């Protein structure tokens, strides 16, 4: 069930809250408390805009256990506008073909469900950018 894991990650999952390094100003996501660039402590919270572009993408047809109901789905590496990269599903694609470099924005969607009596796990996905 991993209840505490999902609770612990709620700010990241729902609001893309990462960190900003107070020493070199680099933006950090996922948060890791130590700046990957300068190695100094970095605990200043920073909320990302949710805008980014597709760095790479693929479609999963043979999912790991627990993800069968959503298959097939598209997983991407998204380069956030502020610099870091995240792994996330793309959603609301309609008939639109996905391309490397496509601008996307973060939305909140269901990541998985654990059967009728299990938890519903929500988190970030990315959709094609609506506003120009």
């Amino acid at each position, binding site marked *: 069930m991993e209840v505490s894991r999902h609770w612990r*990650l709620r700010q990241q999952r729902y609001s893309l809250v990462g960190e900003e390094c107070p020493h070199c100003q680099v933006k950090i996501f996922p948060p890791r408390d130590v700046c990957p660039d300068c190695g100094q402590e970095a605990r200043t919270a920073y909320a990302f805009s949710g805008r980014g572009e597709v760095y*790479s993408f*693929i*479609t*999963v047809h043979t999912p*790991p256990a627990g993800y069968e109901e959503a298959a097939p789905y598209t*997983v991407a590496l998204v380069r956030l506008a502020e610099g870091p990269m995240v792994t996330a599903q793309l959603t609301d694609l309609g008939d639109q073909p996905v391309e*490397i470099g496509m601008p996307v924005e973060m939305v909140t969607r269901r990541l998985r469900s654990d059967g009728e009596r299990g938890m519903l*796990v929500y*988190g970030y996905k990315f959709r094609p950018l609506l506003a120009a």
Partner: protein
Amino acid sequence: MRNVGVLGYGMVPVGEHWGQSALELAGAAVQAARIDAGVERIDLLVVANMLAACGSHGQLNLGAQIADWSGLRGIEAFKAESACASGGSAFRCAWLAVASGQVDLALVVGVEKMTETLVPEVTLGLASAADADYEIPHGPSFVALNALIMQRYMHEYGWKHEDFAPFSIVAHENASRNPYARLQDRISPEAYRKARMICDPINLLDASPIGDGAAALVLAPLDRYPPRSGRAPLRVAGCASSTDSLAIHDRRQPLRLQAAEESSARAYAMAGIGPKDVDFFELHDAFSIMSALSLEASGFAAPGQGPRLALDGELQADGRLPIATHGGLKARGHPVGATGVYQIVEVVRQLWGEAGRNQLRRAHTGMAQNIGGSGATIVTTLLQTQN
């Protein structure tokens, strides 16, 4: 530090061993290695395994369990785990122990039993090599993570899918002459082109098959335990391990295997050699894209140019740098935690002239590189015959 040599090896064929447990497979490899090495005594057993602890019937403490099963109850024994690089990591532990002088006879055994559970469970187990907080919840399989790298690689460097075909064709060609290989059939360029797409751009013939298997090696100080007659003394000339982020998204250069660059550079420095001195390379071809990245990171090709070596025929058995001389992960098979030990066993067989119909004409310096996760742990090992 003492010079460490390989004294003997043993393994079981990679396959679907429905009738045998992990314990039985490991035991068979351990006994074969002890007989081959001609030693009764073992001071240290290091087990390499990735998945035995996963799932609802997981087994931990494999070191003690396999020692006991193998008639070695009482000795020091433990498991080394670094996902698919567990074999390389376990070998390095054993090598360090013997080199330090604390241990004389060390046995490393890699074992994996992948037909015990159903495919979605295995897929989830393999995915657990990735970041459990920030990769796995978004549903990528392990194949998908490699496909993300390959997609971007093709985009940046302009390679077409068919440019990766020679990696798989060479591996299958070599496996056709290896009775221990999981897939012993040759494949044609047409078969590669038409293979079922499993996660675009990775098709079935880009991907290595999982399997059950176990392989073992005995290590000992070179000056005190010469190998049996007919075998050249065989020295571990270099062995280094480096790490990168678990998640691809945390890497500075997602198309570079930083841990391979670092571990191969350190292994070369230990051995006092460079890439041009390597006669053959057992690389970690879990997916064809990993072959390209591994060649680039280890100094055999410029970034983005790995497929060129394959297309030019350099990687075939009669080429400048033969790879996957027993079939590689692609066709010998990939029993994940055991793979790194199979790789080193295959280097040893070449160096001792025991590779059968896959024997290379020139085999004095062999290299094995074992990759854990999508590049998070990479162990590079160099072995050399001493004349």
